[in-house]
């Protein structure tokens, strides 16, 4: 049962082949047995999960079930869940029991999903390896000496190890797609404003976006359907109708124009990864897609722009952690300044402090125009590159990452090297575009991801291309060795 997709489990529930309580007990059992190996979960709440499962079964018995009723999900520990610890992977929020639900959590609860627990993550979503978590690193199920990617590394590892059939993630510069690629699963970052950010702990507010992490594109469509939609509680939520994401999954790719940005196939791309992506392109060509060479000339600037904009917004957002209203408070402060400084110094880890300091610097007097305003102008150029490309193609294809998963500790002391691992994912966040990663083969016995980027609100088109690819390939069905029943 562990290898069934979310859609297959939905059918099994619908056909009364199993109950949500049985399903939930099954995955709680797998978590108890395997989580010590992967450290994918920070919090597991068996009592709440089984209560929700029981309620889901009763709801189904009354014929009031939705397509998601009774299906288990693991939430990234960045989403507030009422009454449950929501740590964001940080000592700062180690003691924080959320007094309210994030909109994503509330929507999925309302549709009857079952929360298995909260997944590990890089502290405040700042990292690409899940090594900055206060709760320790997550092991990649394909090779436990390797990182799972980040920041949604716990969610990716949980789905890859089949500890949960679905998970939520968030993506500020690739934090859904990069771990999805490195763990061999499917992850979708929706258009900015498509999924509510209310109750999703803020890192960089103009970039953050929540989305689904699943085994398949079909599963991602099912879960996105439950997550997406306008939310008056999020001032940046966009009031635009949510299409039926399942409806167009099987549309033919004949005549679909897919762009290959030549800058994404340049120096730095691992040769084995490139070969696998080229093979995936051939599959799409055989499915009828027209492959077109395009250029996104400002690609190389996306990492520099991101490491100005994201830290700037982070320094502002994280100023709320002051030891006064919630979170960690340093013991016996001598005055208010001491309370602020020691609570923040002791509560935040090294990477978070580094980004707060960098953000404070680029926003400070004398540097604001040279760094922040300039970066926002270059961001506009990057966005214009995409808009120009979408006059020629329907969607864009690239590798998700330049290399497969790297060894734990390999880049931890070299922030700049770590930052470059997001080179292919960051631009979609800067431009607010939907993008997803799907499994496309193996390099050095580790999974690699293929990225699809679409025009604003064209998630259905990405899901269509991804689903057709997965109908023609089996990469998404491969399993790590050690995780069997």
């Amino acid at each position, binding site marked *: 049962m562990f290898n069934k997709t979310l859609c297959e489990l939905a059918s099994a529930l619908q056909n009364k082949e199993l109950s949500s309580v049985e399903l939930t007990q099954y995955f709680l059992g797998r978590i108890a047995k395997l989580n010590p190996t992967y450290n994918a979960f920070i919090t597991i709440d068996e009592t709440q999960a089984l209560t929700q499962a029981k309620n889901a079964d009763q709801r189904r018995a009354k014929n009031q079930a939705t397509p998601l009723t009774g299906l288990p999900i693991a939430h990234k520990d960045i989403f507030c869940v009422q009454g449950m610890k929501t740590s964001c992977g940080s000592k700062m929020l180690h003691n924080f029991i959320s007094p309210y639900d994030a909109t994503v959590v509330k929507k999925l609860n309302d549709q009857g999903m079952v929360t298995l627990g909260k997944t590990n993550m890089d502290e405040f979503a700042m990292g690409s390896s899940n090594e900055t978590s206060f709760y320790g690193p997550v092991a990649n199920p394909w090779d436990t000496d390797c990182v799972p990617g980040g920041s949604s590394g716990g969610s990716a590892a949980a789905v890859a190890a089949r500890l949960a059939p679905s998970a939520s993630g968030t993506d500020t510069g690739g934090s859904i797609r990069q771990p999805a690629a490195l763990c061999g699963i499917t992850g979708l970052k929706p258009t900015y404003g498509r999924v509510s950010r209310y109750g999703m702990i803020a890192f960089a507010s103009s970039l953050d976006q929540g989305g689904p992490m699943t085994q398949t594109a079909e599963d991602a469509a099912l879960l996105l359907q439950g997550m997406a939609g306008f939310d008056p509680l999020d001032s940046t939520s966009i009031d635009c109708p949510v299409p039926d994401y399942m409806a167009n999954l099987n549309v033919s790719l004949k005549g679909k124009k897919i762009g290959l940005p030549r800058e994404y196939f340049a120096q730095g791309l691992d040769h084995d990864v490139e070969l696998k992506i080229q093979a995936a392109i051939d599959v799409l060509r055989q499915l009828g897609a027209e492959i077109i060479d395009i250029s996104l000339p400002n690609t190389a600037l996306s990492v520099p722009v991101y*490491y100005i904009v994201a830290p700037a917004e982070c320094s502002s957002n994280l100023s709320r952690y002051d030891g006064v209203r919630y979170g960690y408070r340093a013991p016996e402060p001598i005055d208010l300044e001491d309370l*602020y*400084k020691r609570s*923040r110094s002791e509560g935040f880890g090294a990477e978070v402090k580094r980004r707060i*300091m960098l953000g404070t610097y680029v926003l400070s007097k004398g540097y604001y125009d040279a760094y922040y*305003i300039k970066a926002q102008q270059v961001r*506009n150029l990057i966005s214009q590159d995409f808009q120009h490309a979408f006059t020629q193609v329907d969607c864009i294809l690239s590798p998700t990452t330049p290399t497969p998963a790297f060894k734990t500790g390999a880049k931890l002391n070299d922030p700049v090297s770590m930052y470059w691992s997001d080179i292919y994912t960051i631009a979609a966040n800067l431009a607010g575009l939907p993008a997803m990663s799907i499994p496309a083969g193996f390099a050095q016995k580790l999974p690699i991801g293929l990225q699809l980027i679409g025009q604003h609100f064209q998630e259905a088109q990405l899901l269509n291309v991804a689903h057709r690819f997965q109908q023609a390939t089996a990469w998404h069905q491969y399993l790590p060795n050690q995780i069997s029943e």
Partner: protein
Amino acid sequence: MAIEGKEIEKVAHLARITVTAQEINTLTIDMSNILNLVAQISDVDTQACPSMAHPMECEQRLRPDVVTQLNQRDALQAVAPATEAGLYLVPQVIAAHPKDKS
């Protein structure tokens, strides 16, 4: 571009973060490396390019000026480190008046 230890100390104060001498050394190297990385944007011609405020050039949505949230002070203060009578407790900010000291 290199950043110096004194600037690190100033930025740390602005960010209300305490840094040790060893952290200043590490941060000086790391932040200089990151600033070298981001410096690439300085040569880009952006004269004709406005600053991007929103990925879709949307304006900030406004809502009617009416009360929509119930008062949840008790629930929200339940997670506070120290409260009293509905107020957050912090170390004394204003010095006591000499007359009050007796």
